């Protein structure tokens, strides 16, 4: 695949205070009266893998959905790849091409084959010639172990296979950042590892990743940092070993005791 065509938004000067690939600075978000993100400050460096965990409703998904503008923030700064999210001067459509997003429910296009799912955005958004996009698409599907499923429709694939197509679909855009929103939560247990293996491979290639998950094996293997959220705030953050073996707060200990019990 050729170098990414750059839109006009990339011509703007990067934020001079830029420190990371993803920078939350004092970010707040409300759903009505509910403060779903409370004063979030978090910086993710290029090539870093950050795992976000926490109880249901703690704001983990909302946090990563803000990064590509699927959710809007009320106040604070969120700078992604040198561009301020929500700033009228930022071309969000262009910024989103640099950010892959993997959903809990896969969200593959049911009317498109696996290959078409992977090539749709590269052809229409990146304007890559069809033949080239299809060649790259086949390679990506082979990489996620689905070389024999290029012409299958999503309904003909298992959950784990669908999620691997969804990851390939994101990689087809050659993103700088990959976000995963509970990518294995909707899967049957025997399919979780096939998806995690693909995610590990992506991480090992140096992708900047934020992953909302409770898969501790994955976190220990590839994450540099685990961020624990509760009630919309970041309560604790540390290396996987620190967090899982020596949680510092009562809330994280209570949470871990629940997910570790079984």
């Amino acid at each position, binding site marked *: 695949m050729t170098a990414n065509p750059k839109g006009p938004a990339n011509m703007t000067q990067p934020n001079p205070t830029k420190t990371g690939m993803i920078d939350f600075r004092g970010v707040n978000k409300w759903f009505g009266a509910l403060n779903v993100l409370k004063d979030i400050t978090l910086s993710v460096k290029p090539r870093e893998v950050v795992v976000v965990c926490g109880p249901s409703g703690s704001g983990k998904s909302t946090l990563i959905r803000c990064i590509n503008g699927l959710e809007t923030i009320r106040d604070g700064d969120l700078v992604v790849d040198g561009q301020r999210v929500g700033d009228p001067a930022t071309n969000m459509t262009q910024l989103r091409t640099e950010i892959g997003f993997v959903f809990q429910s896969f969200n593959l296009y049911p009317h498109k084959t696996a290959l078409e799912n992977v090539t749709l955005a590269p052809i229409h958004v990146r304007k890559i010639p069809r033949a080239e996009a299809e060649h790259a698409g086949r390679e990506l599907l082979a990489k996620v172990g689905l070389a024999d499923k290029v012409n299958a429709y999503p309904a*003909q694939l298992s959950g784990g296979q669908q999620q691997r197509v969804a990851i390939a679909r994101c990689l087809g855009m050659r993103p700088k950042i990959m976000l995963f929103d509970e990518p294995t939560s909707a899967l049957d247990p025997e399919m979780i590892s096939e998806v995690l293996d693909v995610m590990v491979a992506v991480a090992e290639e140096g992708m900047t990743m934020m992953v909302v998950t409770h898969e501790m094996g994955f976190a220990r293997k590839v994450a540099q940092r685990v961020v624990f959220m509760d009630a919309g705030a970041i309560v604790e953050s540390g290396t996987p070993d620190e967090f899982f073996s020596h949680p510092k707060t009562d809330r994280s200990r209570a949470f871990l005791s629940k997910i570790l019990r079984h």
Partner: protein
Amino acid sequence: MLENFSFRTIVEYLPLFGQGLVTTVWLSALSFVGALVVGIVLCAMNLQRGWLFRAPAKAYIDAVRATPLLAQLYFLYFGLPRVGFVLPELVVGILALSLNSGAYIAEIIRAGILSIPRGQVEASVASGMTYAQRMRLVVLPQAFKVTIPPLLGQAIVLVKDSALLSLISVAELTRAGQLLASDRFMPAEGFLTIAAFYLLLYYGLKGLAVVSSRWLGSAGARA
């Protein structure tokens, strides 16, 4: 009953029925195309966030659905000349059917678009597609499939509604039946014959629905 039934007269009037049938077919087809255009425009207005476009679209759809087609037809037939538009009956008829059916089609298309899961839109947004690309590549192709069967249902309704145009003396199928009824005092022969022709048209459209659903079913499995 049938000993009094004059098949001979029906045969005699067949050319007239034939002409009426042809007129009903093409004016219905034209009205359906017009209704699709009206429906797409209304639906696009209705899906806007701002009230500026949505309110008039909603008001129009409600007004059309709440009033009889006959009243709408007469409203146009007698009303348009008053504001300076003297149009041939046929044109008024096609206009009335298009404007009427368009309101129903707008709701059919809207239901089709709203039936597409939110995740489909989010996935296409996340991949950097513009609104137009999302609609063209992801939402509309999926909405189209769920919309075809109710649209064909609406087409069947439209064909039957076109019978009302006989009241403004458009020479369509029902008008042919009326002529036989009044010229020869044979209402049974006249109206039974047109009923048979409408049944024929109905099966034609129904066959189209079956073929299209089979074709849509094979073109990509649905989740």
